[in-house]
């Protein structure tokens, strides 16, 4: 008879596993699920009311101007655009980092690329305001120093400025996962493809791109979710027509003190964000665990 090292869970409680599991359980249940469940419950009550209702969720369709849906749609569209733009800007750098730079040069570059990410978000945003505003540095350079422009232009307070700052803020979150999956790509695979007759484009399409896909997916998910739930950038940079879904939620929680409606909004946000993440994973044929573990 073979003595299996795996003890039957019925016979004997594995205290080691239980004790290892406890911190995680306390964390996820106590600090995440329970509070969120509390909010979820609240979302089924009217403010000050005590009967369960779907009114908060239905209200988004009942508003004559469909503000929530419009803002939500716009935010969704923009966050997808931000994720795509960030990918385009970051991909070549990730490639250069993984496949062109070597040794010490590579180390220096990683450090150089990572540092701006750790400066406080507020400061980064204010730095961009200082650059782009009508009396800002860019205009100063263009008008007073280079004399390219006759008069300053307002670069701030529009959607393009917002995109620029968003991409800036999340560049590293795209770059690093792609870099790490490309770094794992054996150089000889590129050679093999070339050797078998593939031109540059085919090498990219059949070898480099598939290898980077887990990183790309991971980057897209991170950038998408974080810009979806960002508050500062649209508020400070976006100008007068760029209402973001988080601003709606913030308004409900803080300005209107209507937590019930705010909670409903945030669960819609969570649901849609999860749906998009799921869609991205399906589209790229990746699994969440694989993508985040890379």
């Amino acid at each position: 008879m073979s003595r299996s090292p795996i003890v039957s869970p019925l016979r004997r409680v594995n205290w080691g596993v239980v004790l290892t599991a406890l911190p995680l359980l306390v964390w996820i249940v106590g600090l995440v699920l329970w509070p969120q469940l509390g909010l979820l419950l609240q979302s089924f009550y009217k403010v000050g009311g005590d009967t369960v209702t779907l009114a908060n969720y239905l209200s988004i369709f009942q508003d004559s101007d469909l503000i929530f849906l419009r803002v939500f749609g716009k935010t969704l569209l923009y966050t997808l655009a931000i994720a795509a733009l960030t990918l385009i800007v970051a991909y070549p750098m990730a490639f250069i980092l993984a496949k062109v730079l070597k040794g010490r040069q590579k180390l220096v570059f990683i450090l150089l690329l990572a540092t701006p990410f750790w400066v406080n978000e507020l400061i980064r945003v204010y730095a961009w305001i200082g650059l782009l505003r009508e009396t800002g540095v860019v205009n100063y350079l263009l008008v007073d120093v280079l004399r390219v422009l006759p008069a300053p232009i307002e670069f701030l307070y529009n959607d393009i400025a917002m995109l620029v700052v968003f991409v800036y803020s999340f560049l590293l979150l795209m770059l690093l996962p792609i870099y790490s999956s490309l770094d794992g790509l054996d150089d000889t695979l590129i050679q093999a493809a070339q050797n078998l007759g593939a031109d540059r484009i085919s090498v990219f399409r059949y070898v480099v791109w598939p290898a980077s896909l887990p990183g790309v997916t991971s980057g897209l998910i991170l950038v998408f979710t974080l810009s979806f739930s960002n508050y500062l950038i649209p508020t400070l940079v976006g100008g007068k027509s760029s209402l973001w879904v988080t601003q709606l939620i913030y308004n409900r929680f803080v300005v209107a003190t209507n937590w019930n409606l705010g909670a409903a909004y945030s669960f819609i946000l969570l649901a849609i964000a999860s749906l998009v993440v799921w869609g991205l994973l399906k589209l790229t044929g990746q699994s969440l665990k694989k993508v985040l573990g890379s």
Partner: protein
Amino acid sequence: MLKRRNLFSLTVWACVILTTACSGTTTDTAATDADTAATGDELGGTLRLLTWEGYAPDELIAKFEEETGVDVEVTYIADNGEIISKLKATGGEGYDLASPSVDNVKLAQEQFNIYQPIDMSRIENPDVLVQSLAEKVAEYSTVDGEVYSVPAVWGTSGLIVNTAEAPEVKSYKDLCDPQFAGRVTYRSRFPTFAGAMLALGYDPFKFSLEEPENVDGWRAMMEEAYTYLVDCKSNVKTYWTSRQENIDLMAKGETYLSQGWDGTGWVLSQENPDIKFIAPVEGALGWVDTFTIPAGAKNLDAVYAFINFMYRPENAGELTKGGGFLSPVKGSTDYWPEEIKVLVEESFPESALNNIQWYAPRPAAFDEVVNEYVEKLQVAEAN
């Protein structure tokens, strides 16, 4: 029975517990004191303020602490909603004194029961207050016959004008004058709607006091103001979201005309004399921030000591001498520097003072309408 191999997990747990214990003891001992050392004969303990940046300057706090032996801790907030949210989340506990604007108090109290009534007998010298203001605050913050607030500081919002670029401005309507296209800034909040309503000939404050049930009427008014502001949107460079943003836009000359606080205008005047704060012909919008005691306040002795301390004219003068806001305490201006006095007097001749339109408490239903239109305005495309 635990076996040896479970040591790993045990160590981990020990670490978790230690971290928890450490952060707990090092950070919140003061608050624990306040919990226990509630009422003694001697003043002391802690006073936890929930207030706006600028309302608790270091010098004054130091003076108060020295006089009373009370340890003051300040938490700053940036929005009335933050006060309400925090107190709502804690059931009115965690703070001893808050400074919501008076028009917020009644609704918050009715909805969430987060404040406690003021014991007027413990205000040492109520006569030192400007009576009209004190009465207004009492009126606006009365719930079930109990008064919940006394005035702390007040101010107005009106027009901040760069007179070099826009010499003729005097009405809220000028914000929408096409000659200032792209050179105007204001908030996308209720004050802007209030200004627009006044410009259109309505009185939103009287309406909300006299017809609190008439939501449809309120909506109609808001709708009209909204249409007006959408038309005006192309004039706006951006909606400012903080005092400093307003200052930057005006000081750098990126905008000429702004709807903003008087204090902001006076700060700008000191840097650039061309910039002035003007009470518009429709009337400046008057706000009052208050002393309001959260329901779970612990150290009431210190609370009233602090209120009385701030009602001493020399302290009130010290608080407001920077020109950011005004004090309801008579004689506080005696402690002001001359240049601030001049600025304030210039902005508020007698007629303008009498014409201040005070924010009045609004029913919850009105606020919902306001929020809806505030957002609609932000979504709307500029014409």
